[in-house]
């Protein structure tokens, strides 16, 4: 039974799910085979990128995962990533863009080995709570994607820096970022790109349908708060974990809440049809937002859904992105049963 708890004044009401967070050893003892062997779902190690006008293999409603760094935009098509799950990329710095189809989660990582080398990853073919279990080639430690922390190997307990990507469609992403580059299907592997072994997102069906159960066993009990595969925006802030129903962000437009003591705000970006979460602080001040209003009540500045002040005293300033990702509810809850929930 959940305990209702108001987390902030003016913020959203959250529900605390009972349950202690599992330990690293708990995760390690719940590793199961997903079927493929080690590296059987091969990471892309020499990614090629195309200009948008050359990406004729993409259709308007194809899903892409977008990342913007220093004004440069990149799109990673889901139809390519579903066959590889990891891209060892260099985007200003070495980054591993990772996607787990079984938990519907995408996130980029930055990590270094004890000797300072940047970590590069490949798939183990194993799963924890249906989630991609990666290994790094430098130390052979194993990292579940959603945990972003090594559960075994020399780096056990170490954490990766997480960089959020956003889910969008090719049409919307291209319109928002006409100069975007796109990951090419010329990956060095022969795969049936364009087909998805698990189901379909347009329209939503097969494994991805919200009510279908996970394919593989997960830890702990089932939470019936949402359907198994309802998409939530999972937010990590220090030790705090919050799951925000993505549809709620879409409906509200602006959703202030707290994670631990950190004030956060989720914006719905209609341009790319995605949710983004930011720390609601600027110039050392906490910014108070109200539901559905992009103008903060503290400074009177108006913010874009991408987190940039467009008008007002803070114009030109950017909010700091939180650590967040879209994820299927069952997986988030299995990893973080202590999570707070915003419906």
């Amino acid at each position, binding site marked *: 039974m959940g305990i209702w708890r108001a987390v902030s004044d003016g913020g959203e009401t959250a529900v605390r799910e009972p349950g202690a967070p599992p330990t690293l050893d708990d995760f390690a003892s719940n590793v199961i085979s997903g*079927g493929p*062997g080690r590296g059987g779902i091969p990471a892309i190690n020499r990614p090629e990128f195309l200009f948008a006008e050359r990406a004729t293999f993409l259709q308007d409603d194809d899903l892409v995962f977008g990342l913007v760094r220093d004004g440069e935009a990149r799109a990673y098509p889901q139809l390519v990533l579903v066959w590889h799950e990891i891209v060892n990329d260099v985007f200003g710095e070495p980054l591993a863009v990772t996607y787990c189809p079984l938990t519907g989660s995408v996130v980029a990582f930055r990590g270094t080995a004890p000797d300072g080398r940047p970590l590069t990853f490949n798939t183990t073919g194993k799963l924890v709570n249906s989630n991609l279990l990666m290994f790094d080639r430098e130390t052979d430690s194993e990292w579940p994607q959603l945990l972003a922390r090594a559960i075994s190997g020399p780096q056990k307990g170490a954490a990766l820096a997480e960089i959020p990507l956003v889910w969008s469609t090719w049409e919307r992403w291209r319109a928002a970022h006409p100069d975007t580059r796109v990951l090419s299907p010329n990956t060095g592997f022969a795969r049936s790109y364009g087909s998805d072994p698990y189901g379909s997102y347009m329209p939503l069906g097969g494994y991805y349908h919200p009510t279908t*159960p996970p*394919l593989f066993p997960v830890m702990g009990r089932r939470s019936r708060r949402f359907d198994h595969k309802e998409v939530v925006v999972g937010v990590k802030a220090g030790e705090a974990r919050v799951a925000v129903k993505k549809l709620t962000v879409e409906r509200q437009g602006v959703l202030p809440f707290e994670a631990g003591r950190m004030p956060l705000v989720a914006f719905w970006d209609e341009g790319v049809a995605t949710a983004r979460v930011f720390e609601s602080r600027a110039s050392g001040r906490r910014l108070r937002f109200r539901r559905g209003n992009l103008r903060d009540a503290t400074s009177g500045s108006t913010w874009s859904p991408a987190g940039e002040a467009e008008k007002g005293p803070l114009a030109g300033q950017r909010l700091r992105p939180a650590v967040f990702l879209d994820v299927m509810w069952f997986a988030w809850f299995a990893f973080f049963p202590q999570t707070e929930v915003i419906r």
Partner: protein
Amino acid sequence: MTRPYELVARLGVGADELFAATRATPRHVWGALSVRRYRVGAAAVALVYLALYLFALGDVDVSTSGRFDRFASIPSAQVVPDWQEKAFAARAPFLYEPVAAVYLLPQLAFFVSVGNILLGSGLGLLLGLNVALALHAAARVQSCRRRGVYASALGVLPSFLLGFACCAPTFLLALGANVAASLVPIFLPLRSFLLPLAAALMGGMLVWSARRLQAAERELAALRLEAAATRRRGLAPAQ
């Protein structure tokens, strides 16, 4: 004879029979393949099996929406850069990396995986030989052993289906995510064993068919001898 001795003796007889049947199998298979129609039948069955096997793995890929022209010009073939290294790289137990993609139509592509083709051909060959031997036996001992030999052909069916176990999750997902969710955890640990089991069963069926054929031939020979003896007795003058 006491029971343990009896058991040992029976085991010994069984082992002798198995050994003899195994030795006789190539001769019977060769006998079946020396008949053109069985040879053609075996080849056809092997090819159909191979095609189904590759289709089940996704190496023969059909797109009803005709998407392949989004990724390559049609027709065309693309070989992966380091194909020598990937030729026998396993993606999963008994599932190998494709080294080339051949785009034949917007609706049809073939992902060429050497390991998958060899495995599918091997299993297809075993199945084809089983069918050829069953048909050959049926023709040879039509009068007395018809049911037995067709039963041996039908006996191949479970092992034939086991050959597709490597793509069980794909099949199960096709049945629906709910069905797959309950069956995948059972199938996955077994998957490594199912394909060798299929090969062993089909090999075993081949030996069993040969043994039945041998027994039937012996029976037929005895019947012929008996008939000849009867004829001789009939022709002999009465005493």
